[in-house]
């Protein structure tokens, strides 16, 4: 069971709250064939649309595409100011993807993230901070190809895990 946290005990400072709706620095990635291959290999998906150029070119896609969750490898840039993460440990709560069109090898994809909500709950691990972020992926022609909405949970004190604050 979780309960909400009373305002007196909140870890959501004014500084933290000021990050809501703040856009990360835009980063543009070229979708590189071998990065897609490595990703498909790592997730264990043998679909030839990701790796077999001739096969993909003769398909309805007309060329190599990236797997639906390849966006995970396109890390958003930093926020204009350092994000003041209050906790040490991190858990991924989930993702919601919306796809408008496939990402093709050779595309230039620009990634921008913003936090849309912050809230906290008390649970088994003590106070947990929930961060909802929306990440947009726009191609070289200015079309929004996909969005990912993520839920990131942080909790606990001690040595910070690597990557806490990056997600």
């Amino acid at each position, binding site marked *: 069971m979780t309960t909400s946290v009373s305002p007196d005990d909140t870890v959501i400072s004014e500084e933290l709250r000021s990050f809501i709706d703040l856009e990360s620095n835009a980063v543009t990635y070229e979708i590189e064939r071998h*990065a897609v291959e*490595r*990703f498909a*290999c*790592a*997730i*264990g*998906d043998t*679909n030839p*649309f990701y790796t077999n150029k001739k096969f993909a070119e003769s*398909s*309805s*896609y007309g060329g190599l595409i990236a*797997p*639906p*969750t390849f966006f*995970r*490898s396109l*890390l958003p840039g930093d926020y204009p100011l350092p994000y003041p993460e209050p906790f*040490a*440990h*991190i*858990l*991924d*709560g*989930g*993702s*919601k*993807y*919306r*796809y408008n069109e*496939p990402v093709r090898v050779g595309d230039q994809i620009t990634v921008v993230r913003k936090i849309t909500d912050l809230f906290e709950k008390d649970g088994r*691990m003590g106070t947990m901070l929930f961060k909802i972020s929306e990440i947009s992926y726009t191609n070289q022609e200015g079309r929004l190809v996909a969005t990912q909405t993520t*839920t990131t949970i942080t909790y*606990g004190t*001690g*040595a910070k*895990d*690597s*990557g*806490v604050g990056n*997600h």
Partner: protein
Amino acid sequence: MFEDVNVGDYLPELVKYPDNRQLVMYAGASQDFVAIHYDLNVAKEAGHPNVIIHGALKSAWLGELVTGWIGPEGRLLELDVSYRAIDFPGDTATCVGKVIDARIEDGVGLVEIEIGLRNPEGAISTPGRALASLPTRSAT
């Protein structure tokens, strides 16, 4: 084809056998270097009995479940995944799916699928849903 799909149909199960090696491969490929996925001491410090599988790797498998089933003419439109419980390397992960709605909107055949990752205890650790389009006979 959209017309071949019925509400209540089950997708063929996709079974994965994750090990530590795959978690390291995924960390590298996705640039996710959170240490609970490869360093046992850090995982224990964070309250886990073992290193844990990246949630995003589980969503990749659920994406594969759906894209494999809809085939080359289908298009994945939405993928929602919620990591309710953690999963561990060494445990078999079974991706399951069931069609919960099939409808035509603006001439496009849409199929909504309840998806999930089933752990060895038979519980769904990672529920989700997907929406995909499928070609219709009338459109061809």
